[in-house]
């Protein structure tokens, strides 16, 4: 029988790895992810989870251990955050080139300096181009379920996948969680069937020197399988509903059908944006929400369908690519580029370094969107001393002033 518990996002992730029957787990502590490592240590030590837990000396090594384990045919899992994910970078590429369906949970936090453990999507989005699938969880339930959903697809396309969840807002917040029945999960996610597993009976070399006459094709195959993953995520998300009771999709709309003004968001802040959309509807404003769940593969076609013909689109980014714009905004713009019905896309940068993104923040964004003509690349929301709007060098920014405590 499924169990109903009150758990944090971190503990839910550990349960996800357990329900998925991860066989080799290797991870390194970092705030705010540490609880995942601790709980998985407990679960393996007590025998509740029959897995090997390798207490490595760094995140680089955590991913390297997963690479070794997965190459030898085991289902491998790790979890990290911020600096740890950055340190893994080289091995993230390795997992892709070696075509290893490792799953990782990243608790998104801001990058140092200054040291900040607070919510910010810059860490995970900096890994945009490594070739990992990426899902953004909004709830504790999803922090658990997306791991299972991800393995289901990863092991069909032989690509790794990461599940992002927000620091503290999700990682440390307790919500009701349905811990699925193990037998049902086993039905949904059978054991890993590797194509190769370093079998001494078949002495092959893996990942060695490859000349210019082959490398391009190997990468083409990565691209091809990432494309396949788009449909597989849809299918596996649907099947998740049939077998485990929650249907998941790469994109999720809320009050979208007749919306003129669409707010686009990803991750835990979406809950507040959703509330703002409800409020706006009550005021008679035709607002809607589009939540991006799958970031890689990016659901380009569906985004065109969902956003084509709208009056205005505002993308909320809890991250920014200096010299360009918020990364979700950038991706949405490029998906819509050249479409005859493409709406103007306004990029809003919010909540950097864990500054609150409240229901009021979403209202502020909508108020600005309604009156603004030019779809700016980056409109900053909540920088001290700077009214909402684009970069303006004639304003005095006041970093040392304490944050106004929210009314």
């Amino acid at each position, binding site marked *: 029988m499924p169990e109903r518990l009150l758990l944090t996002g971190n503990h839910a992730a550990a349960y996800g790895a357990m329900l998925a029957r991860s*066989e*080799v787990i*290797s991870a390194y502590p970092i705030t705010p992810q540490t609880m995942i490592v601790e709980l998985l240590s407990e679960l393996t030590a007590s025998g509740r989870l*029959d*897995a*090997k837990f*390798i*207490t*490595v*000396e*760094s995140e*680089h*090594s955590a991913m*390297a*251990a*997963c*690479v*070794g*384990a*997965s*190459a*030898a*045919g*085991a289902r*491998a899992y790790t979890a990290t955050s911020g600096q740890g994910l950055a340190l893994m970078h*080289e*091995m993230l590429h*390795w997992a892709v080139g070696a075509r290893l369906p490792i799953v990782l949970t990243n608790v998104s936090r801001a990058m140092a300096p200054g040291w900040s453990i607070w919510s910010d999507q810059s860490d995970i989005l900096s890994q945009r181009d490594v070739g990992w699938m990426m899902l953004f969880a909004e709830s504790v339930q999803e922090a658990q379920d997306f791991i299972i959903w991800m393995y289901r697809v990863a092991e069909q396309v032989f690509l790794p996948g990461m599940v992002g969840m927000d620091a503290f807002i999700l990682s440390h917040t307790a919500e009701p969680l349905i811990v699925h029945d193990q037998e049902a999960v086993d039905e949904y996610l059978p054991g890993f069937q590797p194509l190769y*597993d*370093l*079998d*001494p009976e*078949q*002495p*092959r*070399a*893996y*990942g*060695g*020197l*490859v*000349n210019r006459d*082959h490398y391009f094709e190997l990468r083409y195959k990565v691209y091809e399988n990432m494309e396949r993953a788009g449909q597989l995520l849809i299918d596996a998300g649907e099947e998740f509903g049939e077998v485990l009771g929650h249907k998941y999709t790469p994109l999720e709309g809320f009050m979208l059908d007749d919306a003129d003004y669409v707010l686009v968001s990803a991750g835990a802040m979406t809950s507040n944006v959703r509330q703002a959309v409800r409020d706006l509807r009550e005021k008679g404003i035709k607002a809607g929400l589009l939540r991006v769940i799958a970031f890689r593969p990016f659901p380009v076609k569906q985004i065109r369908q969902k956003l084509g013909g709208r009056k205005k689109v505002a993308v909320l980014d809890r991250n920014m690519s200096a010299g360009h714009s918020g990364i979700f905004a950038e991706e949405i713009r490029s998906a819509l580029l050249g479409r005859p019905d493409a709406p103007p896309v306004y990029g809003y940068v919010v909540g950097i370094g864990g500054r609150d993104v409240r229901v009021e923040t979403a209202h502020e964004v909508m108020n600005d969107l309604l009156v603004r003509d030019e779809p700016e690349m980056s409109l900053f929301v909540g920088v001290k001393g700077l009214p909402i709007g684009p970069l303006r060098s004639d304003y005095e920014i006041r970093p040392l002033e304490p944050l106004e405590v929210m009314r």
Partner: protein
Amino acid sequence: MRWVVPEAEHMAEGTLGCQGCGGALSMRLVLKELGQDAVAVLPACCWSIIDGPWPVHALDIPVLHTAFETAAVVATGVKAAKTIQGKDTTVVAWAGDGGTFDIGLQALSGAAERNEDILFICYDNEAYMNTGIQRSSSTPTGTWTTTTPDQRPEARPKKDIMGIIAAHRIPYAATATAAYPEDLEHKVRTAVSIKGGMRFLHLLSVCPPGWKMEADQAIEVMRRAVRSKVFPLYEIRNGREYTITHWPDDLPIEDYFSLQGRFKPLLGNDEMLELVRENVEERWQTLLARHERSHSGAPA
């Protein structure tokens, strides 16, 4: 004790190694005693090339190539998977001195400290050869490399990797070289037979182009390294019990250095040469004392 070198070959002829490559010969000899139920993990090093470009593969065990600094931990991951699957496969991490002494040291220390059930083998050619002969922390005093040119040769002594490994108190560590194949095979056999913990082999491996010498002197030069006490052959059990396995004679160190063009700066600098001589002697005396203590019947 009868020491033998098995005749069976497990490495294809015609690898991409240079003539006289000690790294290639070391692998060939190690495979003879490794057994067939084995997997090798290769970080970036000359062996990334020697094994051949895809789809060529020179060894008759599987090889997993990996990033430069990850040999020990990728091997750990492979071993974890094999263990979960109920297999007893020997997992070998095979790294150069760069992948052991330098960039690979963190993961190596982690694996050694956790006493992972892997066999780590370092083939040590005393520089980064893959990238064209740059110094490593294994490069000895007075050596020319492309980053320690004749005008500013390597000033520091070679890092004491065996001391570092011994400090981790792993069950077995040993030095060896292909110039003494029976001794090497004995150590591989011993390392393979000790299960359940970390084993480490440090193999001095000549590199004729990197050492600026003739390929036909490859075996001779490694032999002289042992005879002159520059590279003594010994074993360490549990980080404490030392056994010298081959007794050097009193070959002058100059006879080792003079075979190699890379030591030209050293041989032209009397002061530096004296320092090196003292250093070799001091290390030998330390080793000897440890050997004697280990074999005196007194607690080691």
